């Protein structure tokens, strides 16, 4: 049994893997906190498109570095700070333009679809032209999170700790805005300012998550844990708590499965969560039918 589980091998590899495991746990815990609002405000499509935009930002940053644009040293090895900056700038620009354009037209889904497919194509196009785009960069976009350093981890703890604190402190404002925007206006709340604040918070969270685990897992952790939590939540506290617990468990379990069966990390975690959602949703539906 122990042989099948390969726990000894995992124990031996732990010193090299532990930072990546903790990174996955942190992202599994924090992305769903933001994702709850994506699911409840029915803007999941934005959650699909934004990680792709973030990935395009990373690719653009590497191309800029390779070409020596913006005063960067041409041909230098990929610098993570540059990639993160590209990711954040692209994401914020996309979110803000969506925030401004979407309420003005009736083609929201088409527009978000356009953003998704253009960002996906642009990522690959930019990568194909970047002189310093090596296997490491492709791995980053695929979401291989094995090479996480202690500095990366500390940076993520500080950043996501700040995001979690802000979400907790302003939880009632974000909830009111999402549930009953008209009431918020009659109360004299500045809904545009709160929307802007939320989009910035969400945009930066997605950027940092994509930078660390790639667009597939970034979207997966953003949306799937809240979707599963929604099946069983009777109040908002349960919704947030369950989302975080599911995100953390999915992260640990998918990391183990990826290690044990030598699978790519991001597709493993998203498939695992997707299967869990399918099984639990079908189970709930069946149970309700039997009870009735």
């Amino acid at each position, binding site marked *: 049994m122990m042989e099948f589980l390969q726990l000894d091998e995992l124990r031996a590899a732990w010193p090299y893997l532990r930072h990546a495991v903790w990174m996955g746990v942190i992202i599994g815990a924090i992305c769903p906190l933001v994702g709850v609002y994506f699911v*409840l405000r*029915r803007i999941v499509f934005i959650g699909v498109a934004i990680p792709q935009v973030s990935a395009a930002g990373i690719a653009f940053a590497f191309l800029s570095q390779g070409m020596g644009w913006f005063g960067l040293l041409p041909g230098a090895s990929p610098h993570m700070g540059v990639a993160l900056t590209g990711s954040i700038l692209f994401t914020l620009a996309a979110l803000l333009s969506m925030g401004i354009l979407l309420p003005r037209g009736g083609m929201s889904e088409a527009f978000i679809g356009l953003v998704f497919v253009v960002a996906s194509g642009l990522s690959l196009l930019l990568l194909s032209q970047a002189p310093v785009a090596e296997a490491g960069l492709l791995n980053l976009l695929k979401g291989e999170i094995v090479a996480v350093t202690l500095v990366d981890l500390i940076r993520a703890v500080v950043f996501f700790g700040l995001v979690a604190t802000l979400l907790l402190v302003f939880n009632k404002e974000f909830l009111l805005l999402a549930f009953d925007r008209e009431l918020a206006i009659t109360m004299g709340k500045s809904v545009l300012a709160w929307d802007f604040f939320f989009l910035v918070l969400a945009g930066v969270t997605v950027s940092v998550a994509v930078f660390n685990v790639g667009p597939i897992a970034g979207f997966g952790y953003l949306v799937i844990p809240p979707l599963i939590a929604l099946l069983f939540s009777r109040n908002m506290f349960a919704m947030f708590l369950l989302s975080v617990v599911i995100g953390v468990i999915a992260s640990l379990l998918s990391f183990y499965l990826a290690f044990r069966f030598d699978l790519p990390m991001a597709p493993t975690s998203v498939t695992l969560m997707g299967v869990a959602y399918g099984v639990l949703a079908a189970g709930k539906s069946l149970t309700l039918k039997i009870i009735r």
Partner: protein
Amino acid sequence: MPDESSLFSMTNAVLGYGKTVVLQEVDFTCRKADFIAFVGANGSGKSTFIKTVAGLIPPLGGELKYAVRGERLPVMGYVPQSEKLDPIFPVTAFEVVLMGVYSYLGAGRRVKEEHRADAHRALKALEVEGLARQRFSELSGGQKQRVLLARALVMEPELLLLDEPTSGVDAKSESAFMEKLAELNRTRGVAIILASHNLRLLKKCVPRTAWFNAGRVRLDDTSTVLEEIEREAGVGIFI
């Protein structure tokens, strides 16, 4: 400037959405403890009027002035149609009522025990305390309206704006809801503006009615307005 007893007044106001004018030459004053019903056909401008007063859409022209006491505007409680609230949210009735507290809690300030007590008191006043832990989306239409009214009451409003609150609610619940509104108006002195289609019920509970017809608003005693509507319709609809 509105006089001491008024909460807001409109002078020669033009109301509508974007470039579409729905109502014009509106002169209207709402005073403390007024109870006014809005009647009229669909699209006659009742909701436009309420949304304008609530600050959801700006007036297109003329004047809308609120009474300012000290440095603050009158506190307004807005009760929408419950169907407008997305049932996907796993919020309990208590959590919905607690949102009313947010009107006087600053950004980032925590909800305290006294605020929770306020929410429980409001639920009790509307006789829906037993529903506190139930999911809002699973309540009946009448129960939802009472919860939304409780939420508005938590704000301790001087003016309640209700946009067809009993739409889709059964007759018995609607009657009970209207009686509750009348009681709040009588006992707490809350001014109430209510859009409704149930003319029979209005005749029983509401002293003044505004008739929205052909882009104009005419405010009078409920019985006078209803008689006029009856005359225009050419049938005895209130017998």
